[in-house]
């Protein structure tokens, strides 16, 4: 089974979802929890079976699908995707376990399980078309979740989410087809396998165009400024569980794809576009942070904060060195945990008050101290307090990018200021001051079910902030091989300089650590 663990991880939830149709709705939640616990256990097994010292792909599977056109069902996992897969399993579990009594809970759980299939699929796929299949397919459950359980503008929000992403990814598809065609021209064989594409060295002019095509698809998903406007609507209207999964996992698809596709396939173009993208990322960071500050709806604050943080991830990715890329991958996980938790927290208060407007709150710390504490922890993680999970990622991303540009990093570093501004302002509005609204006087503090979701997240937030090594180690190995690949493939002189040669680099440093202590 371990040989096919990725397929099992992908299709187990889907099969379970199909069987879910025959489960009575009263037992559905138990069923959903059971399935997601098994899935999470499988994901953990994957982690234990994963050999952290290997930088390449593990647990590879290959089944021909359309061999004459080079489409194969190829799966594999490396340090980059491993943890996002685990995160996906984890958040589905948390999401189902903390699901409050919504209408149609059965449909919701079935949808979530399907969504899980697509999420795991995206991160495990090593064939561009299979990747694309899962990538697109993930839109459908999310569309349904937003559209069926969302707020008053849910239909607008869900359709916008779907179409925007769909349009972008179609452009990306054209890019993929081009890539396959170039591969065909070079080798005489059609192939959509990413690992095959890695071996292809394209002229820079081609790289530029292809990079742009892929970029549109990824950038909308991330979402990068100025393609981000679907996100506030989607988050604003989605039910809590939808926002949690959207922020924690779905957005990561875009940034993950940058690392999986754009960088190793187009090293020269990555260097060429580094500054424009970094500038976009900086606009994302500062501008959306300011927009977040202006929000009146706490969920929108978190939503815009997501965009802002994604900016840092993008910046780290385009640092094009091991520190930056590792940092950005770590930040993906970190942001997943933290923003997921924040959305859960917003959901907690929404369940009680049925509003997300901050002026309706105030002084909540008096009546909900536990809630305020957990929110505070996540708030501090979100603003990048050291020893929380976010800091590691943010620090490494910015550190990495500093090698490429000092000024831009300085600008991007404003993230830690503006991030603190909107977050603290929101926290102050919600939790501090006297209680002004009578409805808030008798609010119940977080209950057991909510704690069940929030406590593990808090623990992870601190644990990985203090001791990121179990995650950072495997990431580092895989990233080193990718950076090396980029360095080897780069054709332009500038790219050769910008992308460090890892093998050489290792010799220089690594201050001998006093491991004896």
């Amino acid at each position, binding site marked *: 089974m371990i040989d096919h663990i990725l397929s099992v991880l992908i299709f187990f939830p889907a099969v379970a979802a199909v069987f879910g149709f025959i489960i009575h709705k009263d037992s559905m939640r138990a069923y959903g929890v059971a399935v997601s616990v098994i899935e999470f256990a499988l994901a953990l097994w994957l982690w234990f079976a994963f050999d952290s010292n290997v930088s390449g792909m593990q647990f590879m599977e290959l089944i021909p699908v359309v061999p004459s056109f080079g489409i194969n069902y190829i799966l594999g996992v490396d340090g980059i995707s491993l943890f996002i897969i685990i995160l996906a399993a984890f958040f589905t579990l948390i999401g189902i376990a903390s699901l409050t009594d919504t209408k149609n809970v059965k449909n919701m759980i079935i949808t979530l399980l399907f969504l899980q299939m697509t999420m795991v699929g995206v991160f495990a796929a090593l064939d561009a078309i299979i990747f694309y299949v899962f990538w697109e397919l993930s839109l459908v459950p999310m569309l349904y979740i937003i559209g069926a359980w969302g707020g008053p503008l849910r239909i607008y929000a869900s359709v916008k989410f779907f*179409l*925007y992403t769909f349009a972008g990814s179609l452009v990306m598809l054209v890019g993929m087809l081009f890539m396959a065609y170039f591969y065909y021209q070079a080798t005489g064989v059609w192939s959509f396998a990413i690992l095959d594409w890695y071996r292809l060295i394209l002229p820079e002019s081609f790289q530029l165009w292809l990079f742009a095509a892929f970029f549109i698809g990824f950038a909308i998903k991330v979402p990068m400024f*100025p393609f*981000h*406007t679907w996100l506030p609507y989607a988050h604003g209207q989605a039910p809590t569980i939808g926002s949690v999964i959207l922020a924690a996992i779905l957005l990561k698809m875009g940034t993950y794809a940058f690392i999986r596709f754009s960088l190793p396939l187009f090293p020269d173009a990555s260097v060429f576009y580094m500054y424009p993208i970094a500038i976009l990322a900086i606009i994302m960071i500062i*501008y959306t942070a*300011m*927009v977040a*500050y*202006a929000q009146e709806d706490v969920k929108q604050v978190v939503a815009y904060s997501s965009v802002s943080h994604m900016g840092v991830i993008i910046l780290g990715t385009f640092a094009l*060195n*091991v*520190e930056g890329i590792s940092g950005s991958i770590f930040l993906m996980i970190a942001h997943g945990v933290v923003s997921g938790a924040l959305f859960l927290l917003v959901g907690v208060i929404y369940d009680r008050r049925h509003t997300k407007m901050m002026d309706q709150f105030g002084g909540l*710390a*008096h009546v909900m*101290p*536990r809630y305020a504490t957990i929110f505070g922890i996540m708030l501090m993680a979100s*603003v990048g*307090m*050291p020893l929380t999970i976010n800091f*590691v990622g943010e*620090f*490494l991303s*910015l*550190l990495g990018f*500093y090698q490429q540009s*000092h000024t831009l*990093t*300085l600008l991007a*570093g*404003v993230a*830690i*200021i503006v991030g603190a*501004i909107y977050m*603290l*302002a929101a926290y*102050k509005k919600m*939790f*501090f*001051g006297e209680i002004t609204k009578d409805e808030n006087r008798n609010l119940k503090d977080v209950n057991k079910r909510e704690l069940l979701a929030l406590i593990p997240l808090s623990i992870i937030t601190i644990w990985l902030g*203090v*001791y*990121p*090594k179990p995650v*950072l*180690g495997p*990431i*580092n190995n895989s*990233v080193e091989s990718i950076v090396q690949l980029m360095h080897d493939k780069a054709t332009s002189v500038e790219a050769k300089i910008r992308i460090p040669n*890892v093998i050489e*680099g*290792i010799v*220089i*440093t*690594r*201050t001998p*650590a*006093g*491991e004896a*202590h």
Partner: protein
Amino acid sequence: MENLLYIALFSPLVSSLFAALFTATPKKQFIGIIASLLIFTSFVSSSFLLAEILITGTPVHVEMMTWMATGNLYIPFGFVVDQVSVTMMMVVTLVSTIVHIYSIGYMDHDKGFNRFFSWLSAFVFSMMVLVMSDNYAGLFIGWEGVGLCSWGLIGFWFHKEVATWAANEAFIMNRIADLGMLIGIFLVYWNTGTLQYDGAFAAFATLDTATLTWIGIFLFIGAMGKSAQFPLHTWLADAMEGPTPVSALIHAATMVTAGVYLVVRSNELYDLIPNVGLFIASLGAFVALFAASMALVNRDMKRIIAYSTLSQLGYMFAAAGLGAYWVALFHLMAHAFFKALLFLGAGNVMHAMHDELDPFKMGGLKKKMTATAVMMTLASVALAGIFPLAGFFSKDAILESAFVEHHFIIYSVLLFTAGLTAFYSFRLVALIFHGEERYKLFGIDPHEAYKFMLIAMSPLLLLAIIAGSLKMTYYEMVTALLPATEYHIHNHLVYWIMTIGTQLFVILAIVYAYKKYANSKVTVPDGTSAMENSFGYKLLINQYYIPYFYEEYIVKSYRELSKIFWKQVDLKIVDATVDGIAGVLYSTGERTRDMQSGNLSTMLKWMVAGTIGLLSLAVVFGLAVRYSDAILAILSGLGV
């Protein structure tokens, strides 16, 4: 030794977590006691470490575990106890132990008692991490950690709008500086390949001055935020909204001095870039004067002390900037003792006065609160730098170093400030403890604080008095690590003239303050006197209008800009473009759907029209092909 180090480091953390367990439960006295005991444990361990260092002179260095390692970056949790850090550890643990004990009494009636100790201990832990770390990243952990705790403690009474506002202001201002710090760290990493102090310092020698200057500047920006140097100083006065023990510990004795610590710690860097050092010194001197001037007129007891802190921080930076690192550190230590004492005394007064802060509404309190009055007076004497108290030795050393280094402007500014310091300190003492008992007008019945609080304060009193005598011992210890610059004015005459002159000047200021404020004519100002309406007074009482400027021009414009970004740019431009594209497509469909009129005749006409359109194209194309040569000839004739 490692165990001692770990005990010193982690017992505050244990204390914090222990108290945190009870945050949601009602007040429990034993939590305060246990927390104090744990902090005391830390103090004891630190003392042992100090003894160890004094005896052996070798630093204790441990590496606990890896924190971050990726690419070439390797950051461990490493801790070092050397002469510099042990000084800080002693200061921190001692003052915190006292503040913890004091707080048991001070926070007696507060329902956030448990939470308070959790935060306070967490602060101690962060501070310990800050001073003990053996690398910049670890320092940054503590750096941010103390910022966080400061936020939590300033905003401790979160139901008060001003308190939470001040907390956020402090946090955000510190963040601005932290960005500088972060950039400094990046620069260190990319230029030296490591963030460990020893590795980085070793590599600094090989770097060019420009790079070093940048590193120095950015690290100092970080220090400016934490130590509230101009222009990031406004948060410190506002931070006085927090409980007074917090002000004593964080905003006087420890956290705000972290900036000085950073400069001292990076002395090998700043030694290489004297220009930056000079800038630091100048800024320090400026802040010393600037803050002292604001303290002259202020009518808020805690704020006066806060400005005094600010002013003294300026002294420290002046010293550090001039290369007299050990002097800066010594002043830091001495200042910690008497300033904490001053604050705790102010806390007693506040308790007695039911949180009244205006010294003009007090007066004559010495009868009711003799112990406090004595302590605060002695602390003020120490602050003013009167022989033989602690302040004299440390401040005098700073003045001397400025003089010896021939920075006479700095010297004179600092000297003048010393006079101001004496004046405002004794203005405060006079207003509080002497003169008419004005508090009676407000129907307040003051009483002395708990005895154990006073006892807890006594070590500080002792140290404020005798710390000066430790100067040479300290000098010998710390110069093992810091540059051993001893400032001696070789001409004895000049030395004596200077010392005595300074003393006289200061005493003059004290006497003037007493004369002006310790008599019975002092009344509660009502804003009508000529002085209160003078330009200078207004300028000072409004803090040079700097907070006003920040609020009106920076905060407001940020808020407005945010609104504009959201309402105008995001919704009306970015999003509207997206929706606009969809809208254009849709309305194009809507407008052209009339083509499908449903009338057969129209349909037939469309078909014919289509054919004719094609025909015309065909003819054009056919002609173009047939006469292509001619067309080309014409075109070339036209010069196309």
